[in-house]
């Protein structure tokens, strides 16, 4: 069998994958071994805690996982989804239901990480990850089936609706047709620790959890890249390019779009379960509309359709939003004796960044090579025309 020559895309992906592995390993080593080290100078220790506290890094990685999922829907298939937070919520509640004492009247254990005498459902974290992923994928199909018949703006509006409805259902879920499905505003507190063979990871094992989140994001990258090159990824791209032509070339639109929703939602489920173990609980008010927009901004600013850009976008944006701005404000205020509340400028900053990006770099930090081509075309055209004129 003839061997296929390695394409440039594959080569660049390999480079990035190597970079991702090194960066991930470094982060893990820093947070697992360097920070707890007694010989670490106090200044470095405090610097890290101010600028990149472990909890914030972990949360950023949850955003990375989610953004990678949204990238499949928005970046690959070109379907604008403004309600992606719904999958985050569903994934989160999967963790809440299957890994806590929430269903206190039951006593179901399945390789769980707590004692058999504890009430509730306690299923192994790794299985809950998969369950959460598939439950979300199922909901992706259920939500997608009626909505995906709509196009562009209309689709966006309906997804926005679902993004509001599902968190609201959980928010008011204390009495869902007579059942308590979410504990309402009180939330589901304390989910089981993550079992990793030798031990269970408690709420403060940031380093190991970070490693797990890095691995989950890597799994999503792997899935994204593999699917992208295959039959389904091509069909997604074709739909993004020209829906009508795609259907005329034998691509079933509904099925293909539903597949993108399902795979995207699967990542949402992973992220939701991861987030629940990260904050050690599930709280309905955390799943608000702003997160959907925030995730979308990560995908767009990072570089739609390019997983590496999306990872960068998600990490940077969630870091700025979570700690970067606050830490900068603290330093700035103590340096200049001012008293400016920098955290309140978050939206101003994001607005500014979005405008600047749209003006100077529409394709995002690290764009997909194809998109770069089309988004810069006007300028290329004018440039070549100017050249001609000179001649």
């Amino acid at each position: 069998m003839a061997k296929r020559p390695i394409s440039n895309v594959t080569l660049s992906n390999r480079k990035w994958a190597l970079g991702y592995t090194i960066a991930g390993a470094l982060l893990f080593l820093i947070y697992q071994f360097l920070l707890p080290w007694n010989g670490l100078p106090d200044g470095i220790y405090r610097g890290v805690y101010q600028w990149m506290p472990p909890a914030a890094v972990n949360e950023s990685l949850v955003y990375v996982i989610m953004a990678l999922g949204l990238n499949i829907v928005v970046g690959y298939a070109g379907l604008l989804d403004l309600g992606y937070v719904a999958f985050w919520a569903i994934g989160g509640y999967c963790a809440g239901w299957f890994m806590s004492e929430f269903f206190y009247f039951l006593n179901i254990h399945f390789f769980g990480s707590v004692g058999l005498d504890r009430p509730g459902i306690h299923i192994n974290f790794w299985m809950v990850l998969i369950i959460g992923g598939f439950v979300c994928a199922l909901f992706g199909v259920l939500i997608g089936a009626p909505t995906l018949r709509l196009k562009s703006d209309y689709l966006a509006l309906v997804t926005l609706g679902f993004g509001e409805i599902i968190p609201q259902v959980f928010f008011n879920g204390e009495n869902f047709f007579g059942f308590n499905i979410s504990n309402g505003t009180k939330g589901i507190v304390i989910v089981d620790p993550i079992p990793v063979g030798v031990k269970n990871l408690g709420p403060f094992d940031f380093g190991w959890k970070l490693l797990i989140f890095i691995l989950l994001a890597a799994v999503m990258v792997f899935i994204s890249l593999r699917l992208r090159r295959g039959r389904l990824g091509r069909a997604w791209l074709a739909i993004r390019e020209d829906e009508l032509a795609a259907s005329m070339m034998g691509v079933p639109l509904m099925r293909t779009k539903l597949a993108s929703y399902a795979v995207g939602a699967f990542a949402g489920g992973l992220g939701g379960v991861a987030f629940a173990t990260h904050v050690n609980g599930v709280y309905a008010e955390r799943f608000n509309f702003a997160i959907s927009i925030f995730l979308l901004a990560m995908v767009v600013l990072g570089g739609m359709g390019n997983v590496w850009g999306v990872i960068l976008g998600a990490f940077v944006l969630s870091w700025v939003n979570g700690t970067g701005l606050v830490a900068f404000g603290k330093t700035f205020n103590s340096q200049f004796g001012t008293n400016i509340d920098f955290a309140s400028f978050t939206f101003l900053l994001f607005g500014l960044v979005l405008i600047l990006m749209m003006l100077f770099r529409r394709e995002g930090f690290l764009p997909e090579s194809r998109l770069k081509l089309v988004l810069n075309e006007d300028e290329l055209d004018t440039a070549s025309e100017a050249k001609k004129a000179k001649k």
Partner: protein
Amino acid sequence: MTNVLEAKDVSVAFGGLLAVNSVDFNIPEQSVVSLIGPNGAGKTTFFNVLTGLYKPSAGSIQFNGRDITDLPPHKIASIGIARTFQNIRLFGLMTAQENLLVAMHSHLKSGITSTILRTPKQRREELAAEAKAQEILDFVGIGKWTHEFARNLSYGDQRRLEVARALALDPKILLLDEPTAGMNPQESQVFVDFVRRLVKERDLSVMLIEHDMKVVMSVSERITVLDQGEKIAEGSPEQIKNNPRVVEAYLGKAKS
């Protein structure tokens, strides 16, 4: 000669407007048939009915003895009716090869899991598909552009790529919507030869919508003329040339 496609009594109404009015149309095996008529006669609408984009308000369409009137477009495409578009509609940001592979979508089988795991079967399938894509690209004469983005190809090559993409569906019928638009006489002549080669070598029938009468007359075995949604004439190029109703539709009535 048997017919691959038989459209009976097909009508299409947009609100009160009858765009196509009870048209009968057959496509025999391995033949070249043309559909002509003045602008707005309903030619492209009729095309769109055959490919499932519009549903006829009356009438039925049979393909190889199977009723396809109510099938969705992607099914119709996958069972063997492929088309090109009047204004080129390639997937511009995909390479020539990818354009063809998209068209093979319905013939490939690998699913989500086998793609993620990249099973040997999936890899074999992909390689075979790529080889077939290359064969088709060579056939239409743009074999050197395999990995070029479709939008970067020249106009003529984009037209070829559209035909290649349609061929990747393994069609029994190829519908070409004004394929020579924007071509000069030499290019049109090359195209006529190409159509003949298509029919002979790839075992299919071609249906043309065309305005270039030279092309139509030299390549078609049968010509159908539509005017204001109605079939006003059908026959060999000779018969059509001398049909007074056709002349009238194109040039207007002679003063008496």
